[in-house]
């Protein structure tokens, strides 16, 4: 694993995440959010989970970001009104980050280097999904169907 690539991807991801959290323009924030997720997917690639990285890009950039963008368009009249952020939320988040970092640095058991592992092929993921994880897989399918119908019902025109 190349540490140069890791540093570059991390800086890009975190900068985009901060931009997504703080930019005033909703559209810019959404695009930064998409960049953040591409960065996270790149980190997954570095960690040897290529399949999950590809799924992440596919689902988030291809579907969720486009959904968000469509929602912004449909609620466009409200765009300019997001003025003034809640200051205490940011303070709490920074405090949490400090606490988490302190805890991570104080735990010796996580300061380990990766063991040499066999790459996880798509074939193995597929076999695992179809054998040991088939019950959660079906549940997720049911959940997605329910979400599809629920979202449709929610946005249907109200009868007057």
């Amino acid at each position, binding site marked *: *694993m190349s540490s140069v690539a890791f540093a570059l991807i991390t800086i890009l*991801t*975190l900068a985009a*995440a901060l931009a*997504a*959290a*703080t930019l005033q323009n*909703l559209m810019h*924030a959404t695009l930064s*959010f998409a960049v*953040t*997720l591409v960065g996270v997917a790149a*980190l*997954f690639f570095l*960690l*040897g*989970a290529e399949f*999950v990285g590809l*799924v*992440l890009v596919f689902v*988030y950039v291809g579907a*969720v970001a486009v*959904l968000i963008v469509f929602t912004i368009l*449909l*609620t466009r*009249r*409200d765009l300019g*009104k*997001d003025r003034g*952020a*809640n*200051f*205490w*939320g*940011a303070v*709490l*988040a*920074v405090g*949490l*980050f400090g606490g*988490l*970092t302190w805890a*991570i*640095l104080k735990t010796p058991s*996580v*300061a*380990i280097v*990766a063991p040499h*592992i*066999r790459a*996880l092929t798509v074939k193995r*993921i597929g076999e695992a999904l179809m054998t040991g994880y088939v019950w959660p897989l079906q549940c*997720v399918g049911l*959940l997605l169907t329910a*979400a599809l119908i*629920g*979202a449709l019902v*929610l*946005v249907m025109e*109200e009868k007057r």
Partner: protein
Amino acid sequence: MTPTLQVFLIVSAALFSAGLIAALSRRHAIFILIGIEMMLAAANLNFIAFWHFNPKPQAPTGVMIAIFSIAIAAAEAAVGLALVIAVYRHYRTTSVDHLDQLKG
């Protein structure tokens, strides 16, 4: 020097905090959804990192949980955004500060 598990956990914590800033400090409902999605991505990063640094790396549990959590996050985003649109139709606003009454 290769990155250790610690570094990945700190990156994930930073991503989670950025999501928390968006979720706690913004008033626009879509920002809050973006924040939640970023926190979920940070959690996924943790799962994958712990899987990668596992001393017994044969079990693909971390990867499986990440895949399922991505699917669930997608469902959550779809329903959440549908809710935003429904609320906007009703109140003509997407700012969560104005949605403070139970009356429909």
